[in-house]
């Protein structure tokens, strides 16, 4: 049986088939909005898509009046409705009757999480891999679009800070942007002390290239520290995890990269002041020491030293004299005592009993031979003395 359809007939048959299939009615679908058009008529047209496929959708004005949020590209949605066929174009579409924002994981989000997990498991985001930013970089690399506002923001902040700025231009959105960024980062190898990878604000779609694995790897492999600044404060990309420091905006990135010029000048001024002060206080200390030494040698001090010595001498002299007197007194009393003792054993008592002591010029005469005939002797009596001459000597037999 061969039947030739008109286009209308064929579309009607498809329509009949699809619109009467309960599996394609009253259904929920999940996806991301793109090509969103809010038509003058009040109808909303958009495409619902995931990584590999897309489907046209219509939300008619009457169904859309209860919508409690603004629909726009990039949102993840849960939609409720029926499959239908738009006969004039033979187009299969979803007639949407209900819309909810999907706060669950959109496919983009899943992809993001997958890349993040993979790179994290390789240790690429580890804190110990992060390089410290140089305090005073002399060569600053910037990876961004030469035409973007981000570059101008960065240059404005760097201002007249004395450094060589090296722009490594890159596409920062659209097809091939990820490869372009990775290449631009690698091109800076060996040329910089710090690298800023940046881009101004944009849709999640625009920023997507910064979530690519090759960009992350290029950043991790960069030989100088990398600051990433993609989009606004709330936009966090894989590049941010890979970078050594994440800045909220390109402006913030530049502020992190270079010291503030006013603060730097103030620091140098302060250093100078401290140096002068330290030198002066050093001199002051030496001067004080000198003055101290000077005081030690002053004439008054010397005079008082002399007086002091003289007094000491006088005192010593006095003590010495006193000690000498004491010694003499002691000796004298010992002499008296010895005299009394001697008297007791002396010759006076014997002489008074009639004995005499004979002496010559050579000493006492105890034996006859102590004298010679003709010697003059002295005889000591109890009272008085006799001077005699020896006539003869008779030795005892």
């Amino acid at each position, binding site marked *: 049986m061969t039947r030739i359809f008109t286009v209308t007939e064929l579309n009607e048959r498809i329509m009949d088939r699809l619109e009467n299939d309960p599996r394609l009615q009253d259904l929920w679908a999940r996806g991301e909005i793109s090509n969103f058009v809010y038509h003058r008529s009040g109808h909303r047209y958009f495409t619902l898509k995931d990584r590999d496929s897309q489907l046209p959708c219509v939300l008619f004005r009457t169904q859309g009046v209860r919508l409690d949020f603004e629909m726009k590209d990039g949102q993840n949605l849960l939609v409720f409705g029926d499959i239908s066929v738009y006969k004039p174009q033979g187009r299969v579409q979803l007639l949407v009757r209900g819309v909810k924002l999907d706060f669950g994981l959109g496919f983009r989000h899943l992809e993001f999480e997958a890349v993040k997990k993979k790179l994290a498991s390789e240790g690429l985001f580890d804190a110990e891999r992060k390089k410290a930013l*140089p*305090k005073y970089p*002399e060569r600053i690399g910037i990876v961004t679009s030469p035409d973007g506002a981000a570059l101008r923001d960065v240059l404005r902040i760097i201002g007249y800070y*004395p450094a*060589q700025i090296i722009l490594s*231009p890159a596409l920062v959105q659209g097809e091939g942007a990820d490869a372009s960024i990775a290449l631009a980062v690698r091109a800076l190898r060996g040329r910089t002390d710090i690298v800023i990878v940046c881009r101004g604000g944009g849709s999640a779609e625009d920023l997507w290239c910064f979530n690519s694995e090759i960009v992350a790897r290029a950043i991790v492999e960069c030989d100088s520290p990398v600051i990433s600044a993609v989009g606004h404060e709330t936009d966090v990309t894989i590049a941010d995890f890979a970078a050594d420091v994440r800045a909220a905006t390109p402006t913030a990135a530049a502020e992190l990269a270079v010291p503030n010029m006013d603060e730097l000048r103030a620091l*140098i001024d302060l250093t100078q002041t401290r*140096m002068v002060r330290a030198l002066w206080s*050093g001199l002051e200390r030496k001067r004080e020491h000198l003055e101290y030494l000077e005081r030690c040698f002053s004439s008054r001090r010397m005079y008082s030293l002399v007086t002091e010595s003289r007094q000491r001498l006088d005192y010593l002299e006095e003590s010495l004299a006193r000690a000498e007197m004491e010694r003499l007194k002691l000796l004298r009393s010992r002499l008296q005592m010895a005299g009394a003792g001697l008297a007791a054993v002396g010759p006076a008592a014997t002489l008074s009993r009639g004995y005499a002591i004979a002496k010559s010029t050579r000493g006492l005469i105890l034996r006859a031979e102590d004298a010679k005939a003709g010697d003059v002797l002295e005889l000591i009596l109890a009272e008085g003395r006799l001077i005699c001459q020896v006539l003869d000597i008779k030795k005892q037999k």
Partner: protein
Amino acid sequence: MSEDKIGLEEALDDLERIVAELEEGKLSLEESLSLFEKGMRLVGLCNAKLEFAEQKIESLTGDLPSDL
């Protein structure tokens, strides 16, 4: 490295060391003075670097937008 070739970072680091040493106050007068002179030269150097700086930009691809 001769003094006028050193970078800002090195100059500032040197200055920091010099100040610390002077403030410690253990040096002889001659040493203090010569260190002080060196410090003042570095201060002059840093100031010169900051004063005469102008933005130096180059592009790896050679072209720069005319408004930069």
